[in-house]
Every structure is written in C-alpha cells, then in structure tokens.
C-alpha cells in the first residue's frame, strides 16, 4: 500500500456514509451548475424560435406539442446548428461587447497600478488611519451595488454622461480582489529582509522595487488581474444604473435580450458571454493556488 497513510479518524462506517452524502451533494451541485450552461449552448443552435420573450417563456418546447398554432411553425423550422442567432447578437450588440472588454482591461490596469502601490504601503509602513483604509477598500463587498450606483449618479452629475462613471463603479467592485491578492502575498514572506539585503548591496529604492519586490509579486498580480477581469466582465448590480444609452456594458445588453428577444437569441448572447469569461476562469484554476483561495473568499 503506497501513498499517504490515511488519518485514523476517517475509517468508521458513519464517516464513510457522511462522505458519500457529501459526494452526492457535490455531484448534484456540479450538475445544477452545468446543465443550464449546456441548455443555453444548445438553445443557440436550434433553428426554431420560441414564441415570446426568454424571461417569460424560456425554451418553449411544450408549445410545439400542446399549442396547435405554434406547432406547425416550429416543427417546419426545426433543425440544428445555425449561426443565425450568433450573427444577430454580434450585429446588434457587437459594440457593447467591445465596450465591456475595454472596461475590463482598463479596470485591470488601474487596479494593478493603484492597488499594488497601496498594498505595498499598507503592509510595509505603519501610519494613521491604516486599518480604516483597509476596511473601506473592502466596504463595497458588503454594500449593495445599486446603492453605490445611485450615490454616484447624484454626487457626480458631471460624470454622468461619460463612460468614466461606469469605470468608477467597476473599479470600486474589483479593487478589493487585487488588494487582497497582493497584501496576502506580501504578508506571507519577509520581503523587508530581502529589501534590506538588496539595500546593503547598494540598491536604490527604484532598483529594489524593480528587481526584488515586483518579481515576487508577479503571481499575485496575475491572479488578481484575472479575478478583476472576470468580475468586471460580469458586473451588473452597480453598472446597470450607471449605463447610458451610448455606453452600455454587456450584462445590461443580456438583460435586454432576456426581456425583448426569444430564448434562442438570449442563449446565443449568454453563450458569447461565457466564451469571453471561461478562459479567465480556467486560467485562474491553473495559476490559482493559495492566492485564489484567499482572495476569492468573500468574493
């Protein structure tokens, strides 16, 4: 029998039973997460179109069997693998998709610049109001996005017509992830000793930053950036009210398709969103590790 010795406590029948139950629940949860994803990927490929909007009717198969008038139309059109709905979404919401990507990338850049500098100062130095700053950065995590959006609209009326106000909303809700990822890493090793060693060899402040601190933070910044990108892409609560007719983020466009378009168009729009999102999520699992676990808590 090779491998790690099993902990003694894990051998009773009761524990095995509980572990079995835990497995069952886990499998159910994974299925519950995956099945609607699969249904929307599938729905975007069907050529028939449901009668009514997605948020009210959903897929509409039953309409084909029980409602006579729809049955003929949907059955004559039934088929598979059309790109019609994707082309429709890209034509109507193409600009929105680009705008959302722009928001996500700018959020990553700004949270990195502001967040890494602030995290370094927060861990390295002692100053007045330090604990307060840390509390306030994390505040958006526990306050509703709609309240922040309404506060921003009223307090900064001059920014209202521009896209900067949407950016601000995204930054408020993504900054905590970057700060957590970087401060957790900084607290996990004695970087002051490394800095002192570099300084004793005559390194200037800039050289210490460039060659000692930043290389050690590379991984944390990568994990933080991926989290910021993913969260920014899906942000809805704060940005929905901050959107303007010209500058609209993609989740708001999704809301429009659910309320105005059929299940097929909505599925295509949702699938496009997942195509944008999944690479970031998969990359997170592979580079992840401890930073993800700690920064993702309370996400």
């Amino acid at each position, binding site marked *: 029998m090779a491998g790690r010795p099993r*902990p*003694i*406590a894990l051998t009773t029948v*009761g524990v095995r039973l*509980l*572990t079995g139950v835990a*497995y069952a629940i*886990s499998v159910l949860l*994974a299925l519950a*997460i995956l*099945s*609607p*994803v699969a*249904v*929307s990927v599938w*729905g975007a490929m069907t050529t028939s179109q449901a009668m009514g909007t997605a*948020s*009210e*009717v*959903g897929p509409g*198969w*039953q309409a084909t069997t029980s409602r006579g008038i729809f049955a003929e139309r949907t059955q004559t059109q039934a088929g598979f693998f059309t790109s019609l709905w994707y082309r429709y979404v890209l034509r109507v919401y193409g600009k929105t998709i680009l705008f959302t990507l722009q928001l996500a990338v700018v959020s990553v850049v700004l949270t990195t610049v502001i967040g890494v*500098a*602030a995290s370094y100062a*927060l861990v*390295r130095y002692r*100053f007045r109001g330090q604990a307060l*700053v840390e509390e*306030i950065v994390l505040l958006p995590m526990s*306050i*509703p996005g709609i*309240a*922040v959006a*309404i*506060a921003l609209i*009223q*307090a900064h009326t001059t920014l209202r017509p521009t896209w900067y106000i949407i950016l*601000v909303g995204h930054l408020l809700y993504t900054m905590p992830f970057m700060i957590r990822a970087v401060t957790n890493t900084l607290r996990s090793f004695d970087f002051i000793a490394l800095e002192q060693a570099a300084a*004793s060899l005559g390194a200037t402040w800039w050289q210490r930053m460039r060659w000692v601190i930043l290389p050690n933070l590379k991984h944390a910044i990568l994990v933080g950036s991926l989290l910021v990108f*993913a*969260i920014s*892409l*899906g942000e809805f*609560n704060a940005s*929905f009210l901050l959107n303007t007719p010209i500058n609209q983020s993609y*989740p708001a466009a*999704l*809301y429009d398709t*659910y309320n105005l378009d059929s*299940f097929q168009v909505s599925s295509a729009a*949702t699938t496009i*969103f997942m195509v944008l*999102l999944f690479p970031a999520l998969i990359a*997170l*699992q592979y580079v992840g590790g401890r930073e*993800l676990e700690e920064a*993702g*808590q*309370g*996400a």
Partner: protein
Amino acid sequence: MRTRASGALLVLPLVVFLSVFLLYPLCYLAANSLVPGGGVLEGRTKQVGGWSAGQWLQTVTVENYVKLFGDGYYLSSLLHSVVLSLAVAVGSVSLCIAPAWVLVRTQFPGKRLFRAVLTIPMAFSGVIVGFMIVIMLGRWGVIPAVLHWLTGEAYLSMTAYTLSGLVIAYVYFEIPRATLTLEAAIRKFDFDLDAAARSLGATLWQRLWYVLVPLLLPAIISTVALAFAVSMGSFGVALIIAKKFNLLPVDIFLEITGYANFEFASALCVVMLAVTLTTNLYLRRLGERHYVFKQR
C-alpha cells in the same frame, strides 16, 4: 537601510479614489434622502443633485422616511428581502459544506476540473442566473419538460417565479463564494483534534458537534454574513423573475427608472445599507467571539 516614511504616500491614490468615489457619494446619498421627494408624479422641476448647503438646511425633512415606514408596501419589500437573504445564507452554507469537504478531504481524478466547475457562477451577473432558472424551471423549462415526458404532467412548471425559485437562483449564485470560504476553513482545521476526540471514545456525532462545528463556526458565520449581504443587494435575478412579489432593490430600481424620485430612492438605499451593514457587523462580532483559539 533608510526607512522612508514618505513611502507610505503610495497609498494616496487609493485614499483619494475612495474618498471621492465612495465616501463622498455615500454621504451625499444620506443627505439627499432628507430632501423632500420630487419625482415625475409631483412634477419634478429641479435638477438632480442641485442644492447647496444653505438650501439643504432650509429644506431638510424626514418625510421620505415617514412615507417609507408608514407604507405597508415598502415594509413588506424590506421583510421579503430580509427573509429571502436569510434563507439563501442558511441554504448556501448547508449545501456548500459538502463540496468544500470533498475538495479538502478526498482525492480523485479531475479534482481541478470539479473545482473550476464550482467557481463558474462567481462572475455570472444576476441576470444570467435569472435567465438560467427560467430555462430550467420556468413555464416551459427543461425540468418541467422532462417531467412531462416522463409522467405526462409538467410538474414544477413556473417554480422559477416563486419565492423558492428566487432562493434556488440566489443559492446558485452563492456556491463559489461559500465553497471557497468553507474550503479554506476546513483546510486549516487540525484533524489531530478529531483523532484525539475519537481516541477518547467520542462518537461520530459528538466529534462533529463538539469538535468540528465549534472550530468551523467563525468561517460558517462569515459565509452567512457574506451571503446575506450579497442577496440583500443583488437585483439582477429579481429583475428577471420576481414577478409575483416585491423586493427592496427592485423597488429602488423602479423608483429611479419609473418616477425619477431620487430623494425617496436615496432613503430606501439608506435603509437597505443600514440593514446590511448592521447585520454584517453583528455577524462579524459573533464570529470573533466564537474563535475558540487562533488557528494557524
């Protein structure tokens, strides 16, 4: 090495950003909730946010709050939101302890993939979750369709639009956050304590109840606090499926988009913030009190 206190100035951009775009707007929100409500129904004439300190002092009133607490409609919205959030908090903790346990305590092929699947909903907006519950449990959803095919009766049709549908949707949304928090807590748990309890003759239930649960309690409480805060404010799901009853975030949204009554919406926001923050603070205190000893 010279320690430069001026290095602490690196935190300045963040402080400026937070004061201008978080603290100042929130203070403005609180101040504006004390201004008489406008809105299109009463013929809005003034610009949004158009008052100086002097004007504010002259017009300050609590009429928005009187309207809010005097009207059964808004109180029922608040009650619905609180009940929903509590149900979601309890539901997500009791469900997600299972995958957290499996991820820490067992080894199986494809574990990384399983973990990736569980984190999928993390970056979904509420609207997507709303859409997904409609396609699974809505009028012609997948589950009713399958049940119709099996039994000839479309059971569970329209579940998406009920309170239980909302709870399911919000729990779906909470799975990644709750699992990650609980997983970290279980990983820190010292299983020698469990072995010690067993060698002293403790039964399974005694070990769970007197050893495991007390040590995991801080993490459980913080998961509950987080789930509560997220569910109080998340209105994406509710916008899509809450057609049968009123919820606080949806009311706020309608107050803005329907009536442009920013002052009354601000008052509703202040009440929502107060409920969320006090609950969070209380639960955090509770969590700190239950630290039996600091775990490494």
